[in-house]
């Protein structure tokens, strides 16, 4: 083999070797990526899970659209069943509104709280329900909002959130009976405008304080039963797999 032939062979072999090197580098790079990807993917998958776990442990969590929608639907249920409020509100018997509406105003909020389990759920339901109730009984709307804030505050203080079923039961039981003292203040305040102070208080509380106490106990009992029914329904739905988080 002469010099020129040798050069020609080398000239052909050099690009072939370069191509081989490049191919080898590509293979090794692909293998590296393939090796590192499962680790990265696992880390990626673990990151949101850790975030969710952290979020679960927080007391105040962000609301999602499905939470808002469910709470609004529960508020609509309260609204439909609470439509008799303007009618019974004019009957001069202390606590008649709470006795008539106590059951539905504890069942539906408890179901809402059992599904969403976030602070502010009760307040949100009260707000959505109150938008329409405000036309029927403006005073009751204000009372409901104040009482929702009080009930939420008590739950946060005692239970630190809605993680336990007991917290939802407690909030559902306390929520509506707390309106009683506010209504008392309202009747006193409103009638002092017309110059007939105390008349409404007498009419709504009755001549004996015993009746007011009896009605208050009845309201508390009704709301407790309602909240208990709400808890049972929510548990049943959870068991059936309908109450997903």
């Amino acid at each position, binding site marked *: 083999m002469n010099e020129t032939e040798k050069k020609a062979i080398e000239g052909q072999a050099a690009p072939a070797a370069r191509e081989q090197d490049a191919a080898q580098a590509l293979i090794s790079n692909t293998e590296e990526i393939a090796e590192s990807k499962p680790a990265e993917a696992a880390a990626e998958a673990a990151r949101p899970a850790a975030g969710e776990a952290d979020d679960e442990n927080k007391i105040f969590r962000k*609301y*999602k*659209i*499905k939470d*808002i*929608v*469910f*709470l*609004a*639907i*529960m*508020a*609509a*249920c309260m*609204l*439909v069943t609470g439509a008799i409020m*303007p*009618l019974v*509100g*004019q009957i001069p018997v202390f606590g008649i509104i709470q006795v008539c509406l106590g059951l539905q105003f504890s*069942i539906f909020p408890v*179901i809402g709280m059992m*599904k969403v389990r976030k602070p502010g759920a009760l307040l*949100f339901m009260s*707000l*959505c*329900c109150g*938008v*329409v109730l*405000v*036309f*029927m*009984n*403006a005073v009751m709307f204000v009372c409901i909002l104040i009482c929702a804030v009080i009930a939420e505050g008590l739950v946060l203080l005692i239970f630190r959130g809605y993680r336990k079923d007991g917290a939802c039961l407690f909030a559902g039981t306390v929520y509506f009976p707390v309106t009683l003292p506010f209504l008392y203040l309202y009747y006193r305040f*409103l009638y002092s*405008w*017309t110059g*007939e102070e105390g008349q409404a208080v007498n009419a709504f509380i009755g001549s004996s304080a015993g009746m007011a106490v009896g009605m208050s106990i009845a309201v508390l009992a009704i709301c407790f039963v309602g909240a208990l*029914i709400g808890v*049972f*329904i929510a548990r*049943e*739905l959870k068991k*059936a797999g*309908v*109450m*997903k988080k």
Partner: protein
Amino acid sequence: MTLRNKKLYPLVAILSGLFIIIFGLVIAKDLLACSLFLAGCFVWLALFGCGRSCLRALPLYVVVAGIFFAIFYGATGTPDAGWAMANRFGAVFLAIVPGMSTAPVRMTRSLSQVHMPRSVTLGMLIAMSFVPMLKGEIARVREAMKTRGAGSIWSPKILYRAFLVPLVMRLVNISDTLALSVETRGFALGKARYTIYKKESVALSDAVFIIGLAAGAVLAAVL
């Protein structure tokens, strides 16, 4: 556009409803003045695009006020207590009228315009527009009860097992579907930017309505 066809600005409707109920309850014992004020409000609301709602509320008002008038007349022996009660119910029913005449979507738009949080406007829209749907669901569950021969709804056990549990289960399913539907339509919570498809604005007719309402209240107070 005539006054009859012009709809009230939603926030004006809310405030006027509040004003009617509060003022009506305060002056309910000034029998004639309150009745005249409420009658004036009825006509005024009918003139400003709430005529249909006024007519819908009227028969119910007549029945309820009639019943309570009879009860109070029977209990006290004088018509005054019954009349005051009828005035109170009049205030309650008239206060509902502006709200009934405002479409939920208009209310939502105007609340969005005043930068109400998106979660609140969505919640209100669903709560207000879900009521007819809920009635349909209740009818469907009761129909299912009848088909299965579940018995009377007044029995607590049957009410719980055959009515409440299926109804709430249905509501949970509807809420999941609705949430998905809302999300797929691009609705987002938080600080996501949004546009209002059709803006609501205060018109001259709203100002005239408010002035008329205030004038009626002043007249009733003077009377």
